[in-house]
């Protein structure tokens, strides 16, 4: 989770008021515990009402088509408490697609700065994750070059189900699954299928 400097709308309560700026000599365990508390509070606030702003930084628009499908009755994003908003100033979450073309770097940064904190950034699709376009004179190559990304959603394009799972991972309502996957098929299953 990322905090804008001094823009947190979280009410100050004893014990959590100073957690965003731990002193350098604080023990590592204490910092981790404090970070966990902040995560929990953000998740509890974002968990069932979250406003999303999408940002296209040079994608082919197929990721946008999939994002639009989220609002269709079949996937029905709103049942989960997510909503799209037209302005970054009203958004809690920035969903970024595309390889971050260089001409858009400043605009992307301004969009991020305009959002109130705490805020979440999701990089959506293989371009945004640095897969398709290498960094060159025209593109930064990855959204992570410009913005602090909290959740990465692979796919070309990611299906609406994958996007939903990514959103729920971002607000801590689902656990991340991919870290435990090896993408190897075990021998026994391979022999049967082969």
């Amino acid at each position, binding site marked *: 989770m990322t905090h804008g400097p001094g823009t947190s709308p979280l009410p100050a309560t004893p014990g959590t008021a100073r957690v965003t700026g731990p002193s350098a000599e604080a023990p590592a365990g204490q910092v981790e515990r404090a970070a966990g508390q902040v995560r929990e509070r953000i998740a509890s606030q974002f968990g069932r009402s979250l406003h999303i702003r999408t940002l296209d930084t040079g994608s082919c628009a197929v990721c946008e088509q999939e994002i639009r499908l989220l609002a269709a009755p079949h996937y029905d994003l709103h049942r989960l408490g997510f909503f799209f908003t037209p302005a970054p100033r009203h958004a809690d979450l920035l969903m970024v697609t595309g390889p971050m073309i260089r001409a858009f770097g400043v605009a992307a940064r301004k969009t991020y700065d305009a959002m109130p904190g705490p805020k979440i950034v999701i990089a959506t699709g293989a371009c945004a994750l640095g897969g398709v376009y290498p960094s060159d004179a025209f593109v930064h190559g990855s959204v992570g070059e410009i913005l602090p990304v909290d959740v990465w959603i*692979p796919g070309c394009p990611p299906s609406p189900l994958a996007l939903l799972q990514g959103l729920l991972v971002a607000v801590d309502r689902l656990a991340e699954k991919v870290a435990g996957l090896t993408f190897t098929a075990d021998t026994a299953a391979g022999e049967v299928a082969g």
Partner: protein
Amino acid sequence: MPLWFIRGLRRGVVTTHYPARPDPSAAHLPTPPAFRPERLDRALADRLCGVCPSRALRREDDVLIFDVGACTACGRCQETAPEAVIRSGEFELAATDRAHLVKRIPLLREARP
């Protein structure tokens, strides 16, 4: 609709979980490949790296490095070596750390005949 209303009043929860039941369309989604390490040697790994259009595959000595984040699920590696590469069926791939998406597939030490 009245049922939902009453349920919402009673439980104080107006949103639902994901997914309520398995989605029938999930079986047809394009998904990144899964590899069979016991059938992958260096030569085949190099061929797979060659056909990958999105730099998702590269080889470091005896390890095939598969960047799931860069994969576009185009299926070219699967077409090149159907005996060693299959469909993974995984599409719920959101990661909180970019490094979680980079997978290391061990290769055979000696070449396959």
